[in-house]
């Protein structure tokens, strides 16, 4: 589904990703872990097409197409979704309007019929239940005044409405209380199907108890330095990153 080959990317002159290789197949869940500042969010933003980052080398093939060649909204149309680490506020635009506009933009681009206001309400009520959010959020401006946890749940609500094929969750578990963590994980698991794939960026094993990954990768200084199965996350939880850093340091000498 997704194949990243030797991806180098960064901001104005400073390279942040120094050659990422990663293959994700349909039906798989990949976890990306790694210390602060190692480039996890950068990778997520590059995959979503943020223009602040430029790709200097390498390629990304998504469902047989050159992902890097697509505009961000085109990527969304093709089923790429990013749950942001820091969701953005849009004052004066209520969540319901925003979500319906997004859904209809995707549907129009895919030559499907638009959803009218009434059908949308039925649909969204269903999805609200999934993330256990109150209907009153629909009337509030997108993310404005939302608590940290509410913002994250709102991201999963959007994912539930837009039904992406490739979902990238950037620290969606950070700032969540125990119940919210369960709700988010449950949402992700419910939306899972064999033709979809998920990349979860996280710092914590506890999320991976609920969303069980097929693969775990560790990023360090803009590279994936170690990959393994779910036991790698447990090992990291126990030992921290130092042993990987050391190992990596000796390797790269």
């Amino acid at each position: 589904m997704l194949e990243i080959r030797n991806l180098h990317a960064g901001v104005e002159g400073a390279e942040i990703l120094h050659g990422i290789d990663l293959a994700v197949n349909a039906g798989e869940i990949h976890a990306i872990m790694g210390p602060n500042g190692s480039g996890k969010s950068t990778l997520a933003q590059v995959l979503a097409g943020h223009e602040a980052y430029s790709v200097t080398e390498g390629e990304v093939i998504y469902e047989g197409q050159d992902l890097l060649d697509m505009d961000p909204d085109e990527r969304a149309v093709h089923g790429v979704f990013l749950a942001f680490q820091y969701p953005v506020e849009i004052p004066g635009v209520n969540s319901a309007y925003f979500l319906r506009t997004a859904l209809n933009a995707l549907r129009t681009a895919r030559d499907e019929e638009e959803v009218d206001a009434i059908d949308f309400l039925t649909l969204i009520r269903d999805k609200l239940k999934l993330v256990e959010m109150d209907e009153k959020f629909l009337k509030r401006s997108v993310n404005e005044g939302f608590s940290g946890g509410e913002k994250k749940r709102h991201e999963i609500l959007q994912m539930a409405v837009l039904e992406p094929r490739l979902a990238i969750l950037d620290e969606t578990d950070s700032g969540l209380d125990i119940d919210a963590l369960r709700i988010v994980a449950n949402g992700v698991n419910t939306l899972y199907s064999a033709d979809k794939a998920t990349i979860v960026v996280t710092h914590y094993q506890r999320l991976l108890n609920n969303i069980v990954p097929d693969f775990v990768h560790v990023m360090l200084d803009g590279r994936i330095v170690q990959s393994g199965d779910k036991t790698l996350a447990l090992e990291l939880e126990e030992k921290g990153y130092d042993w990987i850093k050391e190992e990596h340091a000796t390797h790269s000498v």
Partner: protein
Amino acid sequence: MSSQARELETLATSDYKFGWVTDIEQESAPPGLNEDIIRFISEKKNEPDWLLEWRLKAYRHWLTMTDPLKRKKSEQWAMVTYPDIDYQSIVYYAAPKNAGDGPASLDEVDPELLATYEKLGIPLEEQKMLAGVAVDAVFDSVSVATTFKETLAEAGVIFCSFSEAVQDHPDLVRQYLGSVVPHTDNYFAALNSAVFSDGSFCYIPKGVRCPMELSTYFRINAANTGQFERTLVIAEEGAYVSYLEGCTAPMRDENQLHAAVVELVALDNAQIKYSTVQNWYPGDIDGKGGIYNFVTKRGACRGANSKISWTQVETGSAITWKYPSCILQGDNSVGEFYSVAVTSLKQQADTGTKMIHIGKNTRSTVISKGISALLGQNTYRGAVQVLKGAHNARNFTQCDSMLIGDQCGAHTFPYIDVRNPSAQVEHEATTSKIGEDQIFYCNQRGISTEDAVSMIVNGFCKEVLAELPMEFAVEAQKLLGISLEGSVG
């Protein structure tokens, strides 16, 4: 100009959907301004002597005034720059032929004109119109049609062209004309008083709630012509009216002057809601062409508990220079000003309001949203005056600016003058940049950049748009999107 700028230019100007010209036989005065021209206009309109004298007095006063542009630099307070206007090269009267005798009944209106308004989205045949909206259509210097006159007459409401009002209701016109904006008020008000050609007149009698929205649609068509219309709205005791004006003009390389005067009078317990959706041709990215929109609008809350509310959505014009204001004379009277001003391309806007608190317990609210894109310059200039006798006066002003790109500008000049210690005056101001991150967030959800800008801007202007009559709010929302197309990425 870079190729990208050129691309923007094509985008931006091709978006002005009202830029065509109606090919119609015109009758016009020769260019230039002198007493003979004023006599010509007055005679064309078959005006009574007192009105001719009124015009001439204004003209003579105008001659003694200094063009704001020719004042000493230190006295030029508006943040706008433009080349000298040659008042002798302007045509002060232009009218479609046959329209000279005042507005005809709809059957007699030139089909070319009906087609013009239809193309502008304002069908004048009553069966095709928005239910509940009466329209006065002003084409260059004259009103060409007014709809639903009979329905309104049944309620006792007078809604007609200004010229007609002069003929049919001279006493009302004489009583109120210039009573809110005297001809001495400012340079452009004096000019307007001398040469005004037409406009709308509306009178709501005591205790009547006007049964429909009233609206005037202004169209400048002829070249080298100035448009100087005069609008007068009078709401007697306990009356209510909601009034809306819309404006467009063809794309021309020369600048055209629009210097209107609007006067509102609200007596005891009366309410006037006055909305404007202004979309005159804005000119191009090099600042070529476009309308100079130099307008004086003022409302007098003469009666106790009266209320005047201005709502404006200003997307057009090369230069906008206007301050719809309220004189809060009556005790407990209320003034409101809700404004969205967009400056894109090379547009300049210096706009705001003046709230003058005279009566006790008078209240005013000012919400201003300025949006600047490309090379646009947007200035909010607002004054709040609380006079000695205005016990317990309250004002709340909120003034938000949004910048799109980094070559545009936003400026805020609040003037506050409080002479009564019991007054409460609050001013809040914010400036934000439409964020790359906001747009990216929308993009990531599948929303195109243009739709994202339109959505974010509409969200920013929400409180103001909510004040527009329903039928026009949707139109205004679309207009905001269209006027900012091509301003990002």
